[in-house]
């Protein structure tokens, strides 16, 4: 490991320098040593981008290695192999599972320069002072712990964060407007017999059940206490409705990976399905019409953040804080926003986006000119408006956050039965 390269003495020097560095942030005394540091980040594919690693090398000088895994594997690794990573890029519901293992360390918010500018969702839980907190594992409920070494969650802004929020979005159903040919307004349409054999839902139990719950609630069949934490009875009734639909041939297929969802939609096998935002753009970039349809019952939302391994210390820890501050300082935010996600500190990202881009992605204004993604591919033509509108319109209408339930094991078994039915 890289750490062993330092003797005790240089480590102490490093710590002292780091202390100095945080007191006087601008001149980095340890600038020579930092280029030897390698931080190992792993996480789900969404934000594990090679462009970010390259930019880190340019801007900060140290090396960031990225490993992308699916969310199950990420959970597993964060929970069982704390030595295999320095930085975990995980979702908040994964944090709820992993935090109690003590494999991540609490982060001091006083070292986070842009902490005050982080959107309310991740701090008080409210986007605006008037908004209500959605159901499920809302990020702020698992975002803070009692102090360094804490394994619990606290509900107020304690100054010690479990994850530093980085990326989030509001998910809904994707549709093929050309093959449907009429407006779609409600989650109930997923089980509409009109789309028999042409619907799909994702086969990742913790998220799939939430989409299923949105549908059942919209149908008026079930009223949930908390869609993100269902009772056994609610799980049974939800799965019963979906099993019946499955047996009647409602679903063409279930998907588990991003690519599968893109192929199902692009080939026309499926015309309405649960989908993720970049999958929509992937379909669109093939020249096939595809809409991320806003629905009247609201969105199912998710958020991710960066967590630090409990084993991280000394110079590497300071480098990690440097990385976090850099992450929130705008460049990454702009990069992510250009793909349709949101940044935790939108105002810093604004400086890294053109007025047209900011207007289209964040403010929901019609594009003044062609909108391109970071790879240069055209995403929208002049005059087009983002599906769902502005940041406030989309994030303000979150009905439920991705979550992990108390009855998780029971739910998983029921989900397996549904797949086998």
């Amino acid at each position, binding site marked *: 490991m890289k750490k062993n390269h330092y003797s005790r003495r240089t480590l102490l020097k490093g710590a002292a320098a780091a202390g100095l560095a945080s007191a006087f942030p601008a001149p980095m005394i340890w600038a020579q040593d930092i280029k030897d540091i390698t931080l190992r980040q792993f996480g789900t594919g969404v934000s594990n981008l090679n462009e970010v690693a390259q930019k880190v090398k340019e801007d900060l000088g140290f090396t960031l290695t990225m490993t992308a895994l699916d969310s*199950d594997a990420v*959970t597993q690794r964060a929970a069982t192999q704390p030595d295999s990573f320095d930085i975990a890029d995980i979702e908040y519901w994964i944090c709820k599972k992993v935090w109690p293992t003590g494999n991540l360390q609490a982060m001091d918010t006083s070292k986070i320069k842009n902490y005050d500018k982080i959107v309310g969702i991740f701090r008080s839980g409210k986007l605006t002072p008037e908004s209500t907190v959605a159901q499920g594992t809302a990020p702020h409920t698992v975002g803070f712990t009692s102090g360094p070494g804490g394994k619990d969650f606290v509900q107020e802004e304690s100054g010690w964060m479990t994850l530093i929020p980085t990326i989030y979005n509001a998910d809904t159903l994707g549709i093929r407007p050309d093959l449907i040919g009429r407006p779609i307004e409600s989650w109930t349409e997923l089980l509409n017999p009109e789309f028999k054999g042409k619907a799909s839902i994702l086969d990742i139990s913790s998220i799939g059940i939430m989409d299923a719950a949105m549908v059942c609630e919209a149908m008026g069949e079930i009223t949930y206490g908390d869609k993100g934490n269902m009772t056994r009875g609610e799980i049974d009734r939800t799965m019963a409705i979906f099993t019946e639909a499955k047996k009647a041939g409602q679903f063409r297929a279930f998907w*588990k990976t991003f690519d599968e969802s893109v192929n199902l939609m692009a080939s*026309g096998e499926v015309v309405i399905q649960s989908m993720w935002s970049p999958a929509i753009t992937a379909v669109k970039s093939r020249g096939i019409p595809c809409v991320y349809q806003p629905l009247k019952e609201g969105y199912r939302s998710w958020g991710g953040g960066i967590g630090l391994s409990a084993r991280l210390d000394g110079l590497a820890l300071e480098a990690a804080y440097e990385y976090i501050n850099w992450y929130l300082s705008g460049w990454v935010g702009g990069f992510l926003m250009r793909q349709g996600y949101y940044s935790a500190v939108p105002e810093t990202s604004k400086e890294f986006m053109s007025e047209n881009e900011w207007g289209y992605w964040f403010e929901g204004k019609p594009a003044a000119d062609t909108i391109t993604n970071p790879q240069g591919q055209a995403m929208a033509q002049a005059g087009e408006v983002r599906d769902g509108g502005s940041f406030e319109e989309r994030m303000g209408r979150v009905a439920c956050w991705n979550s992990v339930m108390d009855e998780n094991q029971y739910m998983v078994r029921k989900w397996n039965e549904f797949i086998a039915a």
Partner: protein
Amino acid sequence: MERILKSPNVTGWLLAAPLTLVLAAFLVLPIVMIVIVSFWTATDFSIVPAFSWENYAFLFGSEVTYRVFLNTFKYAAITWAVTLVLGFTVAYFLAFHVRSQTWQTALFLLCTIPFWTSNIIRMISWIPFLGRNGIANSTLISLGVIDEPLEWLLFSDFSVILAFVHLYTLFMVVPIFNTMMRIDRSLLEAASDAGASGFQTLWNVILPLTRPGIMIGSIFVITLVMGDFITVRFMSGSQAANVGRLISNDIALLQYPSASATAVVLLATVLLTIGILLRLVDIRKEL
């Protein structure tokens, strides 16, 4: 010392030792671990050593288990039957109809061409072919055979079995072809001299003599199909389940003990099936 080493007893043990050690370390030990873990319990993110029958109780208490095992057997049986007929026919053609050895080799190599690519690619390439707007449907529509695209071509039991047959027929062809090549040709002449028709020769001479090959092929196909999970997942569009998928779902959700229990039951089932097959033919005697 030298005398000890030269004793046939010791030499025998020493010669057998490397294989024994390799098998013990890489086959027996992992299986023992799986059996042990199957009695452990799990929380959301960790597994806890214990001695609990809970995993087995849940497995045998759930109606889903029986349905999934039944489905696994169904896939295995249908795939076995189809690959047997196909494999036997192909091997028969290669062994008895193709006279020149050059052609035999050439045609045999031809059979292996699909194996030059990964089996995932071979499997996935069926998806665009069988899809609603795929080549199969558009061809049938343009020929006027059907008016509406056939939905059951893809993401159905049909497509799962089609992929299995495509992937595993060669495992049937090779051993059958091999045993057929060892059949003494004079036996066929004798049968014909004794007045047997072609079909009678096939049924009474060739078939009994190729039984070991058929049995080896069957063991390949049945164990491969019963242990598969990826083909079922992709070709059924995740809509069908077999035992392999139960195990892989459990692993994905960190439920290792429950996955181990399912694996142990699957292992026992497969061993039992093979045991029954071996009762029918004594492979060692006939090879």
